[in-house]
């Protein structure tokens, strides 16, 4: 389902321009952005110590961003804002921090 194509490099979703599409390859539970501290567990709804990265990976999956899925960037809000993407027939708003973790192969 998800074969790596050497001719089409993986890029984060944030590298796509509005109107461009890509195929999701992987979601990285990347390092904290902008050098923010990362101590402490995920607070709140998720009591049992699942780390946050796993949680967000799963949430993205549940929203349909599974490997092999086509994603189209519709628009990017100004001032380094969030992404509007089109995936599986619906429109999602994704914060930049989230979009940075989604890696795609650019579709030509």
């Amino acid at each position, binding site marked *: *389902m998800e074969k790596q194509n050497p001719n089409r490099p993986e890029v984060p979703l944030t590298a796509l321009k509005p109107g461009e599409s890509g195929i999701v390859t992987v979601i990285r539970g990347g390092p904290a952005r902008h050098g923010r501290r990362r*101590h402490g567990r995920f*607070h709140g709804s998720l009591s049992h110590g699942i780390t946050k990265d796993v949680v967000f990976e799963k949430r993205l*999956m*549940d*929203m349909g961003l599974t490997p092999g899925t086509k994603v189209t960037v519709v628009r990017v809000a100004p001032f380094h804002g969030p992404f*509007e993407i089109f995936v599986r027939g619906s429109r999602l708003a994704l914060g930049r921090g989230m979009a940075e973790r989604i890696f795609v192969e650019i579709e030509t």
Partner: protein
Amino acid sequence: MTEKKLLIALAGNANVGKSVIFNHLTGLHQHIGNWPGKTVERAEGTLYFKGYTIDIVDLPGIYSLSTYSLEELVSRKYIAVERPDMVINVIDASVLERNLFFTLQLMELETPMVIALNQMDIAKSKGVQVNIKKLEHLLGVPVMPTVAVKGVGIDKLLEKAIETVEKKQARKKPQVTYGEEVEQKIGKLMEKLENIQIVYPRRYVAIKLLEGDEDIEREIKRVNPEILAVAKELAGEIECIHGHCCSTVMTSERYEAAGCIARASQQLVSPIKPTRVERLHNFTTHRVTGYLTLILSLLLIFYSIFTFGDYTSTLLSDLLYGLEPFFTSVFGTGLIGAIVWGGIMEGLIAGVTVVLPYIVPFYLILYFLENSGYLSRIAFLMDNFMHKIGLHGKAFIPMMLGFGCNVPACLGCRIMETQRERLLAAFAVTLVPCAATTVIILGLVGNYLGVQWALALYLFNFLIIFVLGRIAFKVVPGEPTALMMEMHDYRWPHMKTILKETWFRVAEFIKIAFPLIIVGSLALKIADVAGLLQPIASVLSPVTVVWLGLPAITGITLIFGVLRKELSLVMLAALLGTTNFAVVLTPVQMIVFTLVAMLYIPCIATIAALVRSFGWKKSLYITVFEIVFAILVGGIALRLLSLVM
């Protein structure tokens, strides 16, 4: 004939019209509470239909049945443990694939179900035609088309649900067939689970164990930890084959199945061209027109609410104060009269003149914006700004509410995903100048020193929100979450649903705020009658007079402000014996007083709302911090302003 009872649960994604269907079904026979011990809301209602007494539970709008959010966990447990006779799965015909992903998970729970294929009209206008027979066939579940906002198909849906319960027809199962290697592992695990007693279906447990679902893992660990080890091993094998973690593989396959069913049962009839709804979306999220629309709509909303609120508030309070002679005639002007009128009634009036003129219109507009879809666009546009204080776009919504009243704003913080973010948002919200604060700012500084000073105070307040919000975000442990939400198509909301949602919120407000306002007002009145106010003012004078440079009497008025912030101004007029503040206060004193009143404490009702969401301890921290902070800022402002004015 014995009473026939049924328990029906409504389940589905957010924004699919579930609550509209719920309202159609239950009318006013509904009750909104919390799930036991959880901060998740639970809406219940009752209806009578064909000799049945039917209890309906509206489960939270969710996208999945994993356990990564409380809403999901609550819903899953409810279906598995309470075993409703029927689950009505409401799905959005215009976004079939995503909705079916959830449907497939419900089916794995092996619950009796009927599907309400809602928003058929929107799907049609988007050029999506769904072949209902085919969908029914592919899912093996009855599918009923509905247009909930117009009430179309609701009765038939209910009839079908009852018919399905009566027939007790077994569904074909299993529903999602995973890849061969996955199925094989599921089979192996199911054998192991043969003699295990658990509320969930066996196949479901096997699937969830492979996915590493912590909740199920815990339950199995209690009975037989060995199985857990086997599951881990099997999951590892799948990981080896696919190069992705096992739950990813299974989610993918489930989505593939949903996609297949969606594609096979829907037909795209017209070429996808931008519809009116689409154009509106583009306009309202555009980098220029989007922000312009946002600013204009916010200005319009606040202007109309404040105009309306001010007018009706005055009207109402005149009307209610007209009752005073009646009360004095009944209770006399003595001690009892003073306590009944000045304590209880004035507290009540204070509450009523906030709720009707301000809270009701605010909620109406809020729910209109939410149901139409504009709120999610606002969150989208404001995301980057909210990130400056470590929150994401959704947090702008309670902040916006806060300008009207901090109480609904604090309660509104539950739209944030994590408890940490709810707390940070609520903290920021308590610093937002509400309608009552605006009365003070405009009534004192705006009136006597000019609008530019009032604006300066507002700007200063925003600066404080920014700085304190940022500090709080650094201090409170944990990481920021990023925005992730669906932006559904714009649609005309269902007015009755909006009215009902408003009604329930207002009722909630009354329940939280009124008792405290009345008790507080009573306590102050008693202190007044007992002659305690002057001593209190002198006790506070080191702060008010020495540090803040204000008349000693402000100590009392600021205490009254806890009940309702603008009371501090009203009381100031009463105690100083004049409404011309220019005679009794210097310009610097006006600014200092306003600053302190603006920042010093969330009012008593806000504190109650905080307690409800975060418990006593955190609410106390916030309150104490804000009092100290306000006094600090006021004192510094006095010293700085004295240099220039």
